[in-house]
């Protein structure tokens, strides 16, 4: 007589299991199938096409009522099994108790509902089954309905794309820094984000939900950072948990999932489990491919076989029409791992392979996933790829596929893109010169004047010439920014502007970076270039800054920090000195030193104490001296005409005005000033980045000094007659340097490259340009003149830096 087999859960895994059993021995078991959902097996992974309207529910049913009847499967749908009795060997739902010889638990997973206030409001739903889809579709009927999807993983994005397709206004909240972080690296996540944003889906990364707002139904979602998004529905897609409740109640061995052995048997020899509800060798599964393997193994074993389940590499694809995305294997970086990155800026393609000991262990691709299967096979086979290495990234059809073109970004520039700013030469002008017969770089330069002034566009000019002349032209070797890129600093700066690149991942994709996320050389440089190019728009990336700039203090050899408040122009007051003295006492500051920059340094402060000491100094009216910044440092002054018998002008007052105008500005390197009241030069103005010497007839503006590793005397930029002119010219010069110099070049290095005459032309002779430069500087300052100490001491910015994650030091002391 047939044995009695009871299966709990009619999902993707159990559907397969039943097929295996019926195919191999239809008479072995009397099968009874319970399902909590009021329907039988359907293709759950096709719910997204149902949501977007590309398919109907009928299209995705895998086993119809007739099919169950024909195959003698007894079904109890809409009946969740609530108890299992191990001794009596029965399972019980609300209206049936059935005995079993063998029992299979295939209960899948339950969506994780994040425990925030408002989670039970009507309108909050998960995305797991047909009922959820129907609820979403009902909400789409309302005009201008808004949906917030919590979770930017695979499911959340499919839900978002589907809801958008149905006409809803959709916002996705995601806690990580980029979308689908479990499957994608940051670069691919960024491309995906751009694609979704193009479809008008709002994406909020690092968005932590604080509460869902509403009386009896949802109205809005509130984030930790205070942002509020209105919502008619909220779709929670924040992960899944194995549905293990009945197994736990029974006392089976359950960790995160129901623990099974290689043959899919639980800790009870008559009870088996398959699908997302299981845990096998510490692993959980959330994709169908391995579940199908499990179903096959269990099917065989229930018929007396002895098969074992061994998981294979799995790949993921996002089922959003038009977003081609593929990821497989392990794509994190590590010590013995190498990566091959391919970017095609024009087609928006990104591919990355992770290789360990000549074997591909991971692959991510976006935009062109045609070769995904080929790479997946290589991962599974652990094939040695050393022979193929050079062309590997181009896939199996290398013969027909062209390798990436390093000039693609320049080739894609429009004809009116400016190449040489000094002489107003566009890409079109250069190409026209070539059409007109110019057949060398020099000829082009002569005809158009491109790159004949400051020279920072030399690289770009040469590249446009190469595009125009083709293979006949050999590009001169350019000094690239670092090993991650083929572009020089100057090229990158220019392309940031002409291509309007506004984030680091944007730059890396569009300029075809050769690594996935840059290195410590290029990241700080790119961050600065963006800070300078897009004031008020660009969100500073603290993790691309050196520690001193990240925590606004100078790190010391023992890991403590030094704190230097501003003393405007070197002037202080008894109150300030008292506040400094009090702070030194209160925080046990071991060393208080007068610096070479005319101010006081408190050295040896514990990182955790920084916000508190800043708070105290802020209370006394002092702000950060930015003694750590690639930015404005000090303005040294002498006593000047107020007190000195030789003083010709108010050097102290001018120094203070300069410092008040310029503090907070970031620049390629540090920027130091001094103002001396007469040519005796007590403020040492002649070795500063910008120095001013006051004379009877006005002010000599001197630039390009240095007194560090190189010693340079300043040169005269111009002499002006009024304080206003001195201030304007100083700001214009600073801005010219900020916009043009390569990262980590002090002004003297930059002037050596572009020439002092060119600098004079830009900010002395061309009065309009001087005003424009000064104007851009002041505009930028409206965003950057914010005391970074106050933001951290009183507003809790970057609070994570200054407190430990956990403290066990006292535990042991007890």
């Amino acid at each position, binding site marked *: 007589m047939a044995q009695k087999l009871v299966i709990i859960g009619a999902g993707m895994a159990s559907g397969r299991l039943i097929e295996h059993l019926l195919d191999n021995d239809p008479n072995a078991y009397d099968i009874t199938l319970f399902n909590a959902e009021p329907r039988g097996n359907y293709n759950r992974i096709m719910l997204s096409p149902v949501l977007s309207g590309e398919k109907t529910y009928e299209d995705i049913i895998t086993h119809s009522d007739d099919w169950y009847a024909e195959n003698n499967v007894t079904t109890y749908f809409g009946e969740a099994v609530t108890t299992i009795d191990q001794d009596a060997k029965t399972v019980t739902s609300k209206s049936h108790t059935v005995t079993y010889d063998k029992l299979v638990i295939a209960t899948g997973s339950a969506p*994780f509902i994040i425990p925030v206030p408002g989670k039970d409001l009507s309108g909050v739903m998960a995305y797991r089954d047909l009922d959820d889809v129907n609820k979403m579709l009902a909400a789409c009927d309302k005009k201008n309905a808004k949906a917030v999807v919590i979770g930017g993983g695979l499911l959340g994005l499919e839900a978002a794309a589907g809801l958008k397709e149905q006409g809803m206004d959709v916002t996705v909240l995601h*806690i*990580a*820094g*980029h979308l689908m*972080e*479990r499957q994608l*690296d*940051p670069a691919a996540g960024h491309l995906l984000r751009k694609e979704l944003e193009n479809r008008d889906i709002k994406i909020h990364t*690092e968005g*932590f939900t604080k509460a869902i707002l509403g009386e009896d139904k949802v109205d809005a979602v509130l984030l930790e950072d205070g942002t509020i998004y209105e919502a008619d529905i909220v779709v929670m897609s924040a*992960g899944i948990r194995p549905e293990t409740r009945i197994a736990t109640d029974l006392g089976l061995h359950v960790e*995160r999932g129901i623990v099974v052995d290689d043959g899919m048997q639980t800790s009870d020899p008559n009870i088996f489990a398959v699908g997302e509800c299981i845990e096998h060798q510490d692993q959980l599964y959330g994709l169908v491919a391995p579940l199908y393997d499990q179903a096959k193994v269990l099917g065989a074993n229930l018929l007396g076989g002895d098969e074992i389940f061994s998981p294979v590499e799995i790949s993921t694809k996002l089922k959003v029409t038009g977003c081609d995305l593929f990821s497989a294997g392990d*794509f*994190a*970086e*590590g*010590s013995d791992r190498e990566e091959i990155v391919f970017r095609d800026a024009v087609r928006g393609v990104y591919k990355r392979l992770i290789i360990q000991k000549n074997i591909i262990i991971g692959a991510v691709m976006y935009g062109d996933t045609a070769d995904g299967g080929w790479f997946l096979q290589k991962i599974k086979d652990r094939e040695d790829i050393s022979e193929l290495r050079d062309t590997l990234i181009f896939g199996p059809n290398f013969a027909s596929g062209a390798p990436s073109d390093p000039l693609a970004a320049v080739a894609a520039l429009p004809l009116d893109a400016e190449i040489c700013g000094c002489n107003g030469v566009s890409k079109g002008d250069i190409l026209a010169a070539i059409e007109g017969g110019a057949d060398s770089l020099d000829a082009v330069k002569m005809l158009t004047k491109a790159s004949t002034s400051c020279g920072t566009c030399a690289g770009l000019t040469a590249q446009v010439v190469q595009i125009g002349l083709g293979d006949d032209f050999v590009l001169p070797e350019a000094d690239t920014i670092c090993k991650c890129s083929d572009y020089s600093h100057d090229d990158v700066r220019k392309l940031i502007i002409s291509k309007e690149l506004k984030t680091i991942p944007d730059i890396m994709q569009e300029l075809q970076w050769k*690594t*996935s*996320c*840059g*290195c*410590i050389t290029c*990241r*700080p440089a790119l961050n600065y270039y963006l800070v300078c190019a897009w004031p008020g728009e660009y969100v500073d990336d*603290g*993790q*691309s*800054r*050196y*520690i001193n700039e990240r*925590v606004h203090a100078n*790190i010391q*050899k*023992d*890991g403590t920090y030094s704190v230097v408040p501003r003393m405007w122009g070197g002037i202080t007051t008894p109150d300030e000195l008292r506040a400094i003295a009090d702070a030194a006492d209160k925080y046990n500051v071991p060393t208080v030193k007068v610096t070479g920059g005319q101010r006081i340094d408190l050295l040896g402060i514990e*990182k955790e104490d920084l916000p508190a000491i800043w708070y105290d100094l802020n209370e006394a009216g002092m702000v950060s001296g930015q003694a750590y910044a690639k930015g404005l440092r000090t303005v040294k002054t002498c006593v000047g005409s107020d007190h000195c018998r030789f003083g010709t002008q108010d050097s102290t007052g001018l120094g203070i005005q300069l410092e008040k105008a310029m503090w907070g500005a970031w620049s390629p390197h540090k920027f130091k000033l001094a103002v001396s009241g007469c040519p005796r030069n007590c403020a040492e103005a002649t070795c500063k980045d910008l120095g001013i010497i006051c004379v009877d007839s006005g002010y000599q503006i001197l630039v390009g000094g240095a007194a560090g590793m190189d010693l340079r005397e300043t040169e005269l930029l111009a002499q002006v007659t009024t304080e206003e002119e001195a201030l304007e010219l100083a700001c214009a010069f600073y801005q010219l340097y900020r916009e043009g110099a390569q990262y980590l070049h002090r002004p003297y290095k930059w002037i050596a490259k572009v020439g002092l005459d060119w600098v004079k032309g830009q900010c002395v002779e061309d009065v309009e340009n001087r005003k424009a430069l000064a104007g851009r500087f002041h505009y930028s300052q409206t965003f950057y003149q914010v005391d970074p100490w106050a933001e951290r001491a009183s507003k809790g910015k970057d609070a*994570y*830096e200054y*407190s*430990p*994650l*956990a*403290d*066990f*030091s006292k*535990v*042991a*002391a007890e």
Partner: protein
Amino acid sequence: MNDFVDIGAVEDIPVRAARVVKTPQGCIAVFRTATNKVYAIDDKCPHKGGPLSNGIQHDESITCPLHNWVFDLNTGQAKGADEGSVKTYTIKVTDGRILMDTSEFIPEMAAE
């Protein structure tokens, strides 16, 4: 005996940043990478004691803030020309929470 203790949420550490866990033997630096992996190593550079939690993270490496030695977060080994290593600690991430095996740094607790 393992003694896993919840030390906080993954999201308590911003992407590509680090925080410290204080222990009787000194600080441990806990890093969150761009791909949301979490690693823990001693917060002390073998060169001259630089606090590694303050370095710049790139890929799965950390550059010491004092003299730019680079360490692999997976193994704690110095990379490139430099030699030396930092101790690594076991991290488990479950449901967005970070668990550390306290027996690795508080031996007394394990003995109980």
